[in-house]
């Protein structure tokens, strides 16, 4: 009798919790907390927020190279000066009109706060020529400047200044909890650690697809098992890219679709070139040759067609300036490894390598174990250390605290190789999460500078090709594999930008423009 009652209560509870949706809702998740302040945005979750709440002057062309006008209608280049004409009649979500002053305020705010991707705009001076015209002057030639503008979100300067205080002159408190953009989605609520809720902005300056979601819920820090079950039960729509391959596989087997985003980044196993024995190039080459590239690729396979990565051919992902052809895939070579090890000044038993992995990315633990086993075949000793992301970024600030081996997924934040490689290998940018190598090599510096200053695509290609060769020679990094981000999604949503190569943006996170998605239910 009691059991029947309980069952009835459960049924009642279930029945009561499934009313029809009044409006279409898209639910997705990210592992890290989303940073809503656009000047501080750097990782994937931040990018998703930024690209939807804010707009930029240009956006990458879908399905091809180059950039299209967005908040700007056109631009002119005159030496180191870029002049942009703004689109008429654009208003912020607050109702304030977009003016050149907003653009100037946005870049100055970013430079003043000095966080996130502000380093992209180091030597740039902005000026409002008139209400609708803004010019940028660069203090050194920078070929990918237009590309970098996809990382300059335009904020509502009037609204932010209204909410700034004497202690907080750039309105950081306000912008960390509220949106102030022109974007297709406005922030309804933002709970760090829990979720950000966004709603469609009816006043958006472009047409928004009718079927685009009315409401979007971006949840943070869900467990893989939770996401897996929620998607299977139809209560979640798009997973993060950090689900382990097995879970993606289980979802795909259960009928979920797999969305992909590729071509702008790779998995880099970074070697601290200042710490013995890895300060010796032969010791580094011994371990880069011992790494089992084939098994790593095998681990990434999700289905027969979809994989989390493709074989690496060198320091630059296939498809970018200076990359090697796909046929040059790197492979394990134990004979070469042994030969280099013989030249290495340190006995294998004395290596004592610290192999770190980022706690938020379970896949890296497996790669760490793979490396440990690979190196052990040469007799090289090592230990494994788990580092949460925040702690990792703190540790790499000094060469002594930086582990021997760090595993990083790096993407070109603007889609251009400069933003992928300059931060990693130029001697002027040591000690960030991108550069735990602490590489200091004049040849590499020269090639990087040439690449960013070159006027033509041919010259850039040549510069990055030389860079690639040099980076293979001195082996500061194990170039693990070219990254392809994979997301599992329910069939309630269709995302052309993440499933049709002709619609892809070639910029990480941009595929999550909600206005281009369609809810099919």
């Amino acid at each position, binding site marked *: 009798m009691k059991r029947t009652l309980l069952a009835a209560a459960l049924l009642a509870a279930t029945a009561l919790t499934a009313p029809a949706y009044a409006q279409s809702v898209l639910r997705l998740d990210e592992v890290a907390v989303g940073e809503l302040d656009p000047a501080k945005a750097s990782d994937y979750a931040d990018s998703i927020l930024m690209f939807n709440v804010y707009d930029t002057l240009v956006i990458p062309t879908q399905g091809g190279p180059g950039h299209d006008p967005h908040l700007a209608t056109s631009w002119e280049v005159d030496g180191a000066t870029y002049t942009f004409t703004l689109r008429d009649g654009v208003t912020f979500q607050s109702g304030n009109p977009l003016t050149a002053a907003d653009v100037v305020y946005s870049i100055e705010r970013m430079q003043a706060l000095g966080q996130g991707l502000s380093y992209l705009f180091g030597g740039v001076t902005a000026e409002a020529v008139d209400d609708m015209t803004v010019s940028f002057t660069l203090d050194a030639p920078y070929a990918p400047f237009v590309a970098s503008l996809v990382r300059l979100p335009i904020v509502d300067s009037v609204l932010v200044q209204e909410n700034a205080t004497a202690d907080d002159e750039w309105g950081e408190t306000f912008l960390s909890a509220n949106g102030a953009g022109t974007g297709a989605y406005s922030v309804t609520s933002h709970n760090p650690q829990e979720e950000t809720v966004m709603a469609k902005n009816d006043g958006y300056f472009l047409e928004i697809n009718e079927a685009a979601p009315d409401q979007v819920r971006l949840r943070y820090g869900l*467990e*893989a*098992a939770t996401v*897996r*079950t929620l998607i299977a039960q139809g209560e979640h729509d798009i997973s993060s890219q950090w689900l*382990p391959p*097995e*879970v993606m596989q*289980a979802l795909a087997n259960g009928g979920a679709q797999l969305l992909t985003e590729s071509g702008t980044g790779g998995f880099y196993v970074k070697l601290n070139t200042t710490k013995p024995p890895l300060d010796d190039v032969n010791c580094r080459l011994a371990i880069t040759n011992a790494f089992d590239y084939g*098994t790593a690729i*095998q*681990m990434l396979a999700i289905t027969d067609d979809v994989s989390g990565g493709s074989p690496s051919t060198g320091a630059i992902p296939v498809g970018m300036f200076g990359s090697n052809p796909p046929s040059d895939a790197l492979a394990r070579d134990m004979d070469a490894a042994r030969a280099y090890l013989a030249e290495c000044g340190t006995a294998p038993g004395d290596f004592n390598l610290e192999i770190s992995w980022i*706690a938020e990315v*379970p896949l890296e*633990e*497996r790669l*760490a*174990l*793979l490396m*440990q*086993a690979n190196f*052990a075949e040469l007799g090289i000793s*090592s*230990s*494994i*250390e*788990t580092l949460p992301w925040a702690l990792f970024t703190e540790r790499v600030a000094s060469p002594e605290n930086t582990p021997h081996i760090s595993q990083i997924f790096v993407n070109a934040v603007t889609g251009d190789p400069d933003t992928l490689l300059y931060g990693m290998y130029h001697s002027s940018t040591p000690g960030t999460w991108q550069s735990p190598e602490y590489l200091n090599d004049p040849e590499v510096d020269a090639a990087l500078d040439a690449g960013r200053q070159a006027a033509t695509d041919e010259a850039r290609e040549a510069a990055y090709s030389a860079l690639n060769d040099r980076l293979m020679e001195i082996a500061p990094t194990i170039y693990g594999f070219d990254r392809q981000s994979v997301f599992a999604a329910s069939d309630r949503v269709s995302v052309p930008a993440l499933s049709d190569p002709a619609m892809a943006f070639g910029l990480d996170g941009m595929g999550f423009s909600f206005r281009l998605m369609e809810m099919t239910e």
Partner: protein
Amino acid sequence: MIRAFRILAANPLSLIGFILVVLIVFAAVFAPWIAPYPTHNGAVVDFLNNNRPPSAQNWMGTDLVGRDIFSRILYAYQISLGLGLVVLAIAPPVGTIVGLLAGYMGGWVETILMRLVDVFLSIPPLVLAIAMMGVLEPTLTNAMLAVTVMWWPWYARLVYSIARSEREEGYVLAAEVIGASSFHIAFREILPNCLPAILTKMTLDMGFVIIIASSLSFLGLGVQPPTPDLGSMVAEGARYLPDSWWLTVFPGLAILLVVFGFNLLGDGLREILGVDE
């Protein structure tokens, strides 16, 4: 001793506990000989055989890098039991000394020491250990340290309460009258009266220490890979529910089994030694 065993044997539950503990200790000590894949406690990967359900080759399946879960559980028992032994070798003596000093000396020594104990006891045990592990590097030694730091106050309080009541007993007064030193009275007269309670608590605590230690590693604050640890095996496997259930369920049951064994045994010992809960 023989009498103790006979009482144990008369109580089937305690006997089961005793057998469980003996079996697990045996399996842990002789893991290198018993484990079907003795190399799997360390840096071994076998991606051709990863994430396999239980089979004749791998009784409890394999984990995500292809290691035999049964073998790793046996090695993980070494870590759990070792940690328990170290904690119980340090915390009770420290707590006992503090408790004796406070209980026998009285006065400001008592006030200061017991307020200190109160401070430690007013943070839930696991929270204190988590906070400590949060600022320390996650290593086995630090995990032992964190658990020990949260553990000694319980012994201090136990010994203190016994010492305080014994302080008024005739034999202590008699010793004071003949001019015995405080040290002599505290350690030679009072301490022996605390021993049965301390010993019983230690047996019962073994299981509890294992639970706390596995909780720390469940949260990623304990032993680091590739060293096998029951708590981190459960945490790791939980990401792959419900498909790869064996990753979580077997290590979870392994914790249950060893702690259950110690609890059954401790429960029996309590009856034998006649100590109240």
